[in-house]
């Protein structure tokens, strides 16, 4: 019976549910985006390792004056050696450097590919492993061999169906032999961060030989031994670096220690912004929609005053009338919510295609349905109460 009443008010209903539609679209899209972002972020940072510090020239996330970091001295291999001798609680130390080069196999070229000069210890400081072939060995590094290990996406783009192992490819103008393919990481790159599947590892010594070592900045990954806490380890690394750099006590550090936590902070603030924008849009639309539904329900109650009188005359109690109208307002909002959900499927597909992998999950769908029904109950409550409290004889007399 509630449904027939809604059908009668169809055009009005469609207009007023627009707010609900937008509200549900906003809440679902926000949650889906936040979810996708979370997955993406976890994949990205898991590749970095949680017990690894990165000694670099600059912090990853620069909050102050960018220029103040430019005059800092580059980190070099001698400092890596000294750090290796001095650090007592390090499990592994791995220097790396990178550049962008065009890479080529036969007639296919990939422009601006990330080339990372590193050592065999790369595997100890990150979670990525070769899926095919092998990684760089100490011998590759010692003898400056022109060998490379390529990311899975490089393999797909450059080699296609060809098995790349032992194939010769060009990095810049230099010939390199492929010895391994890294396992797929699956992260599309966290907000402009690196795509781990689209990079090539070569021995750092070969890197220097091919692309020069002057004015090249190094990143030094230092992995903490299992027994030491990361903050103690950071304290030790900073102390030893200051000694190596011969800094006086009053002088500031002229290097930066980076770690995953910084990304977590950045992630949290990005997430916070997205979620709060989403919630504000959701809140406003649901509020506007709720007011609209409340209006429609007031009209519905007034139009059906006589009907309410009849129902009361034959024995409807307050709560029967109350639930009849609450049911009606919930159905109106649920319809709005379902339309919003349908639109969200489109929005999610768009996010998936343009920004990052994202999908509608069952909990999100349930939240959307719950939120729309709750909006219906809330916005229908005052009109429904008005109906429930009508005096039967006054309602029956209403013209």
């Amino acid at each position, binding site marked *: *019976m509630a449904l*027939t*009443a809604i059908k*009668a008010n169809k055009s009005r209903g469609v207009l007023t549910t627009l707010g609900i539609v937008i509200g549900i679209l906003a809440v679902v899209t926000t949650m889906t985006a936040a979810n996708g972002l979370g997955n993406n972020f976890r994949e990205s940072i898991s590749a970095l390792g949680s017990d690894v510090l990165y000694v670099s020239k600059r912090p990853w996330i620069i909050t102050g004056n960018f220029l103040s970091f430019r005059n800092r001295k580059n980190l070099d291999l001698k400092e890596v050696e000294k750090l290796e001798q001095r650090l007592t609680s390090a499990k592994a130390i791995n220097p790396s450097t990178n550049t962008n080069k065009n890479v080529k196999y036969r007639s296919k070229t990939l422009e601006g590919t990330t080339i990372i000069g590193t050592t065999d210890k790369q595997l100890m400081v990150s979670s990525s492993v070769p899926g095919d072939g092998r990684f760089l060995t100490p011998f590759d590094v010692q003898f400056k061999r022109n060998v490379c290990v390529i990311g899975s996406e490089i393999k797909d783009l450059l080699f296609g169906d060809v098995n790349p192992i032992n194939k010769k490819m060009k990095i810049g103008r230099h010939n390199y032999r492929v010895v391994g393919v890294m396992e797929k990481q699956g992260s599309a790159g966290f907000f402009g961060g690196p795509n781990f599947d689209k990079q090539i590892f070569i021995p750092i010594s070969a890197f220097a030989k091919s692309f020069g070592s002057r004015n090249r900045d190094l990143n030094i990954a230092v992995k903490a031994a299992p027994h030491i806490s990361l903050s103690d380890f950071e304290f030790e690394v900073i102390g030893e670096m200051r000694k190596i750099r011969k800094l006086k006590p009053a002088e500031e550090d002229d290097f930066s220690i980076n770690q995953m936590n910084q990304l977590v902070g950045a992630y949290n603030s990005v997430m916070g912004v997205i979620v709060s924008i989403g919630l504000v849009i959701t809140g406003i639309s649901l509020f506007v929609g709720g007011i609209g539904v409340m209006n429609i329900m007031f009209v519905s109650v007034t139009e059906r005053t*006589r*009907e309410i*009188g*009849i*129902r*009361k*005359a*034959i*024995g*409807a*109690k*307050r*709560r*029967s009338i109350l639930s009849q109208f609450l049911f009606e307002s919930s159905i109106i909002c649920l319809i709005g919510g379902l339309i919003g959900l349908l639109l969200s499927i489109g929005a999610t597909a768009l996010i998936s295609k343009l920004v990052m992998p994202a999908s509608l999950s069952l909990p999100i769908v349930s939240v959307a349905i719950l939120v729309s029904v709750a909006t219906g109950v809330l916005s229908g409550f005052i009109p429904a109460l008005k109906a429930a409290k009508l005096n*039967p*004889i006054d309602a*029956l007399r209403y013209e």
Partner: protein
Amino acid sequence: MALEIQNVSKTYMMGTEAVHALQSVSLSIEENEYIAIMGPSGSGKSTMMNVLGCLDTPTSGEYYLEGEDVSKMNDDQLAEIRNQKIGFVFQTFNLIPRATVFHNVELPLVYSGTPPAERILMANDAIERVGLTDRATHKPTELSGGQRQRAAIARALVNKPTIILADEPTGNLDSVTGREIMAILDGLHKAGNTIILVTHEQEIAEHAHRIVKLRDGQVESDVRPNRVGRNADVVLN
């Protein structure tokens, strides 16, 4: 005693002026009585019916329905009384226009919490008693006045109430249809119901066994004519 009102008054405020629709009316109605309330327009007949039917509460006075003090009951308790003990038939039918005859008749059962399977049986049974089975799936707008009033009577008796209140049930009908409706009410009386009927037509009133006349919110006369009902039927035909 089925119904008993004592010193019941009902006063409406029209702006600053008080309208005394009922003035200290007392009346006792026995079980299975067939009573007609008559009087000129504005004499308080409908007000009295609404009080007796628990649709309205008196300004002062007491009302006992089957021994229960109704004047002390709240909204929901009155709704339950209306649902269980009283069947109301209105001059304007008061059917829900969007619902079919069946759904209109079923509705009191919904409010009494009767299980669906039983509802279907009971509603169809009531519809059959008023001879409207072939119109059960029609909406009120597709029915004649007489058929609408039959539907309303079916709704009034579906919950098997003891008391049927009919406020000018034939007021909107032609005399032939009116007689058909009265025949149904006579039948309900024979089946044991207490019938209270408001009318200003002498012919209709003669179906009852007791006639109460109101004037200006007070009882003018209360008579039990010598069983003229049957003779009246003969005269009418």
